[in-house]
């Protein structure tokens, strides 16, 4: 059986007209009661229980407080990037430059390869003392 679009549209229009006419026949009081019962049967919108709202607020406040305490514990001066920009020694250089600032200066007094040679067994054999 083939469907004729024009016939379907005409049928639909006729059905709607019959329905509208039938609605007009229903008493107003009955219509009101039908609406009320329809609303009562629909699912209620979800509401967050009060206790869950309370926990959420408390947790958020605690998180803000913890961050504030943590920020105050961090030194306010000289983040790494600033010191790096200011030319501070990298970790490799500080490791190379020995145990105290004076040794760090002494490390630049001579060629590092000379220091390497001095540590070798070859240099020890050749040393005057």
């Amino acid at each position, binding site marked *: 059986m083939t469907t004729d679009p024009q016939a379907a549209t005409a049928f639909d229009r006729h059905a709607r007209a019959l329905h509208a006419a039938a609605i007009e026949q229903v008493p107003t009081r009955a219509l009101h009661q039908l609406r009320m019962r329809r609303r009562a049967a629909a699912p209620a919108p979800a509401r967050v229980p*009060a*206790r869950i*709202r*309370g*926990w959420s*607020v*408390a*947790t958020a*406040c*605690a*998180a803000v*407080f*913890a961050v504030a*305490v*943590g920020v105050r*514990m961090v*030194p306010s*001066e*000289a983040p*790494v990037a*600033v*010191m790096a920009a200011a030319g*501070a*020694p*990298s*970790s*490799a*250089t*500080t*490791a*190379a*430059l*020995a145990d105290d*600032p*004076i*040794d*760090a*200066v*002494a*490390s*630049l*007094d*001579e*060629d*590092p*390869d*000379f*220091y*390497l*040679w*001095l*540590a*070798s067994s*070859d*240099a020890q*054999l*050749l*040393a*005057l*003392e």
Partner: protein
Amino acid sequence: MQSVPTPLLAFVVAIAMALPLASRAQAPGASPPGMPAWDSLTRQQREILVAPLRDRWDASPGKRPEMLQRAERWQQMTPEQRRQGRQGMQRWKDMSPEARHQMRALHGALRELPDAERAALRERWKAMAPEQRRAWVAAHPPRDAHGATAARARDPR
């Protein structure tokens, strides 16, 4: 009677739980009591530590290129090489001025020789008496970074 805790009580409980976490969020190096890791020092503390190097830099304009070159060489070294270098530095610190002068001269000469001649110089040196070594150093004085003859016993100690 309501059995659910009030938001205020919940806040107090959450704070009690959060404080230990906040106090643990200190210097990540977990260093013992005393000075923290470099990254946790204040700018003023770092300035104090870097001051000797800065003073030397400012005091020796002519030596800045070689100072920078040597710092770059330290950075290129492996950790083991740096350890050995620090060991060599310690030996250097313990040497007399004369010994330092001789080792500078000897190292300078050895570095420029091919392998065979280098081995020969080593053997000659081992066989030399102290006077002979002094004479050899006088004839082969150490050179500085610019190739000029370095002054004898001019050690910053």
